[in-house]
């Protein structure tokens, strides 16, 4: 429950930062915080009491008990999600550089003024 509350707080913080922070770079960082919240949320779903990491300890297919290992699926999914998050951040940084070069500011309000 505490973990979940932490996740929700992280998510709301990220989303709020994206909405409220005036600087685009800060918005981007807030976006990363938000994404991390979702990633942690999935990983929480993988957790099992008393289970080990999802790598087969002993060879031999017999006697593998599902209870003995963490759920590998969320880990897999979150690997992908992390890559997605990193890619998005990379692209966003590229766009930010371009914006900075063109408009000489990353302040959203002054940029929006230029947009109209």
């Amino acid at each position, binding site marked *: 429950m505490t973990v979940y509350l932490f996740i929700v707080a992280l*998510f709301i913080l*990220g*989303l709020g930062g*994206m909405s409220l922070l005036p600087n*685009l770079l800060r*918005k*981007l960082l807030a*976006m990363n915080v*938000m*994404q991390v*919240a*979702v990633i942690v*949320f*999935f990983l929480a*779903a993988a957790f099992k009491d008393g289970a080990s990491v999802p790598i087969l300890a002993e060879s031999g297919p017999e006697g593998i008990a599902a209870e003995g290992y963490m759920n590998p699926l*969320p880990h897999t*999914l979150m690997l*992908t*999600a992390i890559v*997605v998050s990193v*890619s*998005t951040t990379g*692209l*966003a940084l*590229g*766009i*930010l550089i*371009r*914006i900075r070069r*063109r*408009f000489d500011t990353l302040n959203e309000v002054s*940029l*929006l003024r*230029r*947009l109209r």
Partner: protein
Amino acid sequence: MRESLPGLLVAVPLAGAALVPLIGALFRRGARETALVLHAGVFAIALALFALVQDGAPIAYAMGGWPGPWGIELRLDGLSALMALLTAGMACFAAPLDLSGRRSGAAGGRTSPFGDSLLRGVLLLLLAGLLGIVATRDLFNLFVFMEISSLAAYTLIAAGGGKATIAAFRYLLAGTAAGSLYLFGVGFLYALTGTLNMDDLPVQLAAAAPGAALATGVTLIAIGLSIKAALFPLHGWLPDVYVFAPTATTGFIAAVMAKVSAYALLRLLGETLFGVEAGAFVLDVLLWLGIGGVLVGGALAIAQTDVARMLAWSSISAMGTILIAVAVGSELAVTAALFHVVAHALAKGCFFFAAGALAGGLGLSRVQSWAGLASRLPGTAVAVTVAAFSLIGLPPVAGFFSKYLLLAATWNAGGAAGAAAFAALIASSLLAAVYLFRVLEAVWFRSPAQGSLLAEAPRTGPERLRLPRPLVFAVGALAALTLAGGLFAAAVERRLPRWPLPEPVGAASDLSRLDSARQEGAGTPGRRVLR
């Protein structure tokens, strides 16, 4: 062959996305031709799939030979095949165009040493992403392909340079927030059911007790997809994107991208989660938001003086219309929604291509600057007129029939919401008439301002105004399709998929039956028997 088409539908454009830049980097030529061939190929695959599912039997495809819920399944039924056909078709129109936004001097006059092969690769990625969303039956896979399409879209938009980069960044923030909300929602569903498969999910949910977690998950998914679909009041990112993106990008994105998200909404809320109380509730909310979007979008479109911005608001209104129909959810309503999706994609694509060509190539971005267009570019004027009729819903073009079906569907829905939607649809037509006839009046009946480009250009001779040939083709073909969609409305309607009303959850199927059904399919080539 039939069995492998769904896999090819996504794999071919993905391969193209890597192949085209590779050719561009290695050979410096041939990239454009390769891209065009690939687009045509994808369209052919989509067409073949669309023809194959006409008999009503969906074509399922287990990626990697692993059936759901363990592996990722694709499925092309009438609905997804239609969306795939529309997406691939619109991409064919955008593909030959100049993807770099020359109008605002993108890239500062520099051209990449790879030519525009990179942009063509990104367009193929966008196509692959959208087709992936359409084809998949897996919630997480949908997220992955949503992000592929989003990243590709951000790139294509930002390639416009200048203000387009700001629009692209804001879209990126909104889109990523949408993706995260969606994924968060999927996380809730996963924690409750342990599955990501859209067929398995209702079965598992039927076993689980409905609760707040489920409602939260469904709501998060709905919000995420609504942002992507630019559903009022989550539409904030859309107008700037449509205004500043390069012509080809705007035409393609405006025609299909938001609609694919609406498709995902329909799939998830209308089908997978339909039996769920929270799903039904969210649909009710969507109906009212759709009504709001229809009215607000139409009203704000009137307030615009820039053609592209006006069209952008009109798109918000159209998304509202589609979501109304999706939310009503009856067979007729979904048919109407699909008809409207097709009609609107054709008309809006045509209009945006024309508007982009005029704004980008000739600097004619304001409604008033279009005055006298008919005398200098009569073909474009006719195409724009046809598109405008369709957007308003005047006979005999396609938009009229979609509007008729929509009205009939909302009327049959009954109740206060149905009546309100009915009235909102009529009002939206009137609003559309106001802002579009303003354009038509300028195009046909006003004379160009003294000294303006249109006034100076000669009417005939080699010096007369001309648009790039691929644009002329795109605009003309889309206008012709819009007209044909109206004249042969019955034929179009017949080919639209019937909305498969979901069977009552629980009685429908359980996992063992699902598995045995797969076992039966084991005899077909490429289908592996599970141990």
